[in-house]
């Protein structure tokens, strides 16, 4: 199907909460430059998969490989440092920080001065700060928030808050970005804007893995789609295959009306 | 062997008292999301309560000793519960957010109650003569009736609390509020009332603890400083918010403390407790009974 190198490989990923399997033996491979979608009803384990890959949770079994390197249960900040970042569902932001400050937190991986050096006003520290601000400006431009630079995150419109979430993730210059329900709560216009942005991200050479409910967005955007139900992967393929897959229709999509 | 059994019995009593305090702490944390540093002072007030009714103003002197004793405990519990409810409604509730603020406010309450007790009752240790004279002889081990009564009393209160929380409508409503207070409110549950009840209940059982075992050790304004510290440790060990965890934690702490005191030395006991606490947190950051997320 896709001849490019796999950038992210999940094999046999399993997570138990108490005695319940939230994610059960899920394997999935994402190739460089792809947009891959994960769909399924709430509670099917989609977000848990994100939390496992980004090491917010520890895996019960299985392995996660990124760029052929085992990153299973690495600390979350180490995962991010490898070039794999994620956004959060809803609006997890630094609400009473300005847009710029939010992005600056996202830029930390590019900071080269140490905490100790930062105590002094050395030239390297000043140069460093300028460099980071330039990166932040660039990111704000990219996600279309340049005009809101000094606005508090909590005062942004819903759609802009989602853009900011993506901006924070982009600020660490990732190779792969995981988007958790990027268009939830948006109307059609906002959805198309978000789809354009996601395509732009891919055009920068960044692989995208996303969880989404909106079928139209998933089908319009993704190169491949995986379907989860009760923590298990029940199908995987290009959008057309998924839409016509009998078990997906039975478990998830239902008869077309 | 004798020493061992004796220590075990003392350890069980210490654990049960701790459990009474720890359960209350846990209840308040679960329902009101408050780390209440003043909780130990309610235990202390319970101790002063029985002293007040039995020694300072022996108004039940005409009754049989046991009846007077029980009435004194119950009245102390009610009085302390009312004080607790006042503190909750007028001091804690207006500053519910953020958590750090409420914690510091509870420190203020603690300072106040401790100093108030000092002014009112003085620093000298008080004692209460127990209606349970005599010793029980179990093989070679002897154990005072007083201590046995305290053990039984603690068990009774823990059992009553368990039934209230697990079975009654009020108990279920409390758990509902602990899980999601807003969702509870739209079912028609008056959360303010639940807060008051929870605070009242937890203060009452802390007072019961003070009333039951305070007299065995000593009663003074600072009598709660050590137990509350250990109760906090118990709650953390068990996992914040878990009632069975609090009881289990209380037993781990209580037994460890008693045995280390007996066999190694009193000063070491608290240090060992502290190390256990840190050890558990390193291995399982959410405590023994706590859940991930």
């Amino acid at each position, binding site marked *: 199907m896709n001849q490019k190198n796999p950038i992210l490989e999940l094999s046999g990923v399993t997570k138990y909460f108490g005695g*319940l399997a939230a994610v059960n033996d899920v394997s999935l491979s994402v190739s460089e430059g792809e947009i891959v979608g994960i769909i*399924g*009803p*709430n*509670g*099917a384990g989609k977000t848990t998969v994100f939390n496992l890959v980004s090491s917010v949770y520890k895996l019960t079994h299985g392995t996660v490989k990124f760029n052929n390197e085992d990153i299973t249960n690495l600390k979350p900040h180490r995962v991010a440092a490898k070039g794999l970042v994620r956004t959060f569902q809803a609006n997890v932001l630094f609400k009473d920080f300005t847009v710029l400050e939010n992005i600056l937190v996202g830029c930390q991986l590019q900071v080269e001065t140490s905490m100790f050096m930062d105590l002094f006003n050395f030239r390297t520290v000043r140069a460093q700060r300028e460099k980071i601000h330039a990166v932040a400006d660039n990111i704000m431009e990219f996600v279309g928030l340049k005009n809101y630079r000094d606005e508090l995150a909590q*005062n942004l*419109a*819903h*759609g802009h808050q989602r853009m900011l979430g993506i901006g924070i993730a982009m600020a660490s210059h990732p190779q792969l970005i995981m988007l958790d329900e990027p268009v*939830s*709560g*948006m*109307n*059609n*216009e*906002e959805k198309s804007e978000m789809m354009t942005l996601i395509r732009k991200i891919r055009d920068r050479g960044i692989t995208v893995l996303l969880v989404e*409910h909106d*079928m*139209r967005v998933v089908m319009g955007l993704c190169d491949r789609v995986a379907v989860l139900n*009760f923590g298990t992967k029940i199908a995987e393929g290009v959008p057309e295959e998924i839409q016509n897959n009998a078990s997906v*229709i039975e*478990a*998830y*999509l*239902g*008869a077309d*009306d | 062997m004798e020493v061992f059994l004796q220590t075990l019995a003392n350890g069980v009593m210490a654990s049960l008292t701790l459990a009474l305090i720890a359960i209350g702490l846990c209840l308040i944390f679960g329902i009101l999301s408050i780390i209440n540093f003043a909780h130990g002072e309610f235990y202390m007030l319970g101790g002063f309560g029985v002293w007040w009714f039995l020694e300072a103003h022996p108004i039940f002197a005409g009754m049989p000793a046991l009846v007077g004793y029980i009435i004194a405990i119950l009245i102390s519990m009610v009085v302390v519960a009312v004080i607790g409810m006042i503190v909750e409604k007028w001091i804690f509730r207006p500053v519910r957010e953020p958590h750090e603020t409420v914690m510091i406010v509870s420190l203020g309450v603690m300072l106040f109650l401790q100093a108030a007790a000092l002014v009112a009752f003085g620093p000298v240790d008080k004692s209460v003569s127990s209606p349970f004279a005599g010793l029980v002889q179990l093989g070679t081990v002897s154990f005072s009736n007083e201590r046995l009564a305290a053990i039984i009393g603690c068990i009774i209160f823990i059992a009553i609390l368990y039934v209230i929380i697990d079975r009654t*409508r009020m108990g*279920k*409503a409390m*758990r*509902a509020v602990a*899980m*999601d207070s*807003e*969702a*509870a*409110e*739209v*079912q*028609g*549950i*008056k*959360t303010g009332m639940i807060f008051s009840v929870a605070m009242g209940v937890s203060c009452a059982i802390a007072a019961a603890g003070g009333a039951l075992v305070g007299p065995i050790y000593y009663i003074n304004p600072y009598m709660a400083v050590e137990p509350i510290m250990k109760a906090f440790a118990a709650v953390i060990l068990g996992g914040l918010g878990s009632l069975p965890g609090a009881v289990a934690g209380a037993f781990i702490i209580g037994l460890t403390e008693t045995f280390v005191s007996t066999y190694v030395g009193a000063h070491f006991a608290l240090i060992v407790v502290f190390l256990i606490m840190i050890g558990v947190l390193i291995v399982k950051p959410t405590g023994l009974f706590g859940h991930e997320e």
Partner: protein
Amino acid sequence: MHLEIKNIKVHYGKVEAVKGVSVNIEKGTVVSLIGGNGAGKSTILRTLIGLKKPTSGEIWFNGERIDGLPAPQITRKGIGYSMEGRRIFSGLTVHENLEMGAYVIKDKQEIQKRMDEVCALFPILRERFDQKGGTLSGGEQQMLAIARAMMSEPSLILLDEPSLGLAPKIVQELGVLIRDINKMGVSVLLVEQNSKLGLGVADRGYVLEVGEVVLEGDSKELMANDHVKKIYLGV
């Protein structure tokens, strides 16, 4: 009129989330509020049930003014509320969740009767009776949330985003279910982002954008409206 919302305004701090909205519900009808996030739909429901106080405006229910009352009191007047994100008590069993839904009813037999009626409507819950709420699937949790709101025998039920996160297949069933509830004589106020579902089951609809009603009317007419088609139905 069963419920009348007259020109309410609601603020979060300095931000005006609802800017003078009026909504009417006739007895026994289904009314939908549709619109994107930030349109103020959920805020209207939260204000209606008393979790949020309006800055101005009035709310009348069964000829009685209810704005500003605390939530438990409004619930007692006969309004059931299935919250956004389900918000079931995950540590309580299904049975206990339903019991809490009937908290305002004191009579044990009455509660039992309600329990039977509601379980007839949601047979799946009967099977899960002693399971903890948190162990149910997303669809089952949504059923439980609606069932819990039905337990107090409300004459009006508020449904906040019931379709959120459900499999498209279950969303279809949900439409039927809302109709069933309505047939029992209960008025329904439905807030939906899934406009197709929202307008599909409703008698009347209101379209909200940034805190204001931009369109209202018969739901069939709304579905034929060009603006609604373009922005919300995406035809």
